[in-house]
């Protein structure tokens, strides 16, 4: 008999991208305990492991320097999953909501008024 088995695609998920372990293990663990109606699986909290300015750089690497002006549709799950576990790529279309939680960190050496503006555009599109 043929093998018709298809890779099962998970849909209707919510993705939470946070900066570090602390946000996942403490903050959201507590929030989910307090508000069990929040429909986010703990496995769908991704720890980016660094700050928003490095995420900005990763987006630039994938979409080029003009990504913000060009109106490109930025696929954050793709950008992050490719960096962290390239064998299992995830895509924006699999998620109904993507929530980013990062510190503003104006003191970071990579901060500039320009990339701060672009980051706001990104948040508006995600």
């Amino acid at each position, binding site marked *: *008999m*043929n093998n*018709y*088995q*298809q*890779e099962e*695609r998970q849909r209707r998920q919510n993705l939470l991208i946070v900066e570090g372990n602390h946000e996942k293990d403490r903050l959201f663990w507590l929030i989910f305990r307090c508000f069990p109606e929040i429909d986010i699986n703990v496995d769908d909290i991704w720890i980016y492991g660094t700050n928003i300015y490095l995420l900005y750089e990763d987006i630039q690497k*994938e*979409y*080029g320097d003009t990504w913000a002006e*060009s*109106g*490109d*549709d*930025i*696929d954050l799950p*793709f*950008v992050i999953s*490719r960096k962290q576990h390239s064998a299992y*790529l995830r*895509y*924006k279309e699999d998620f109904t909501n993507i929530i980013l939680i990062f510190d503003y960190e104006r003191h970071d050496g990579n901060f500039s008024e320009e990339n701060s503006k672009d980051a706001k555009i990104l948040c508006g599109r995600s």
Partner: protein
Amino acid sequence: MLKRFTVKNYKNFKDSICIDFEKIAGYQYNKDCLTDDLLSKILIYGRNATGKTNLGRALLDIRFMLIQNFFYMNHREGVFLNADSTEDFATFSYAFQFDRKELIYQYTRFSDFELRDEKLMIDGALIFQCDFAKKSYDFCNLEGIYAETANVERYLEALQKRREEDEMAEFILPFLRWLINNIALENDSILLRLTDYVRKMQMITANNGNAMTFYLSRVQDSFFKSLEKEKNLDDLEEFLNQMGVACKLKLKEMPDGQKELYFAHKKLVPFFENISSGTLALVNLYRQIVSKGWDISLLYLDEFDAFYHYEMAKNVVQYFKKRYPRCQLIMTSHNTNLMTTRQMRPDCLFILSTSGKLTSLCDATSRELREGHNLEKMYISGEFASYE
């Protein structure tokens, strides 16, 4: 495998249109869309009436030249030549790669029926050339295909005789076809490789017929007989389930001994009277391709997903990539959900324009297309509009 196909002055293609399977860009993902450094999984988009179906018919034309029964040549569809052209013949050119040899077969025709000329070249060297209109023949290099013993005089005599006597006087038997059928070729002959490839070319168009037509045709079809074996019925059921149609099938013997197919519910529901359009299209694909179990060299699936849910369309593409890795699969579709780097690559996604030009997405924009780009959104927002 087919490296390049060009057609000109055929149906709506007034100018030359080419599918160049060698034109690979350097993408490092979805390499299962390539085989032997050639594009092997292609998806063509285009507005309605741009000629997607005609392109498939043109591509499969070589079957009529070399394989198919002559009877069918008289029963082909529509106008043959481009209606706006002053040229009175259409040109077809096929470049194949077999092992390390390149075989080019070119011919022109006045109509579905009437051959104007034909030419065969191997690795750039002319093997033969026949100009039937001018009655000029050059069999200069038949030894290049180990066919020097071929009695070409007999072919020419037969040609002349047919012209004088036969009521089908305008029909000309292609020399290549005559050659393949009249000489003993070595097992590793490039002409046998060509014949084998052409025999395994197939085209399937969206099933516009209704379920009842399908039902009535079943009597002559061995496929329906094959379902009487339990493992075959289970296989069809498994295929439908995995592609996205959750159902259970049952065969039941009628009082007259005939077996009928049903959807198994608490009560049995007759299959063909109640089948949905999408399921019917899927069963049709299964019947014509999957159930046969043989390899296919080139498959042109024209608007294959016209009745499919978008996930079923993705499943079918994925299945064909996995099951037929060496098959050159050319699909046409209006389903932009398949225009994604998740399954395809920009060099395998094409737009057929209203002026009859075929352009890959990576050639249809000055921007560098990257894996993270949302090609569907770019297409809909007009990024490639000047190539539509």
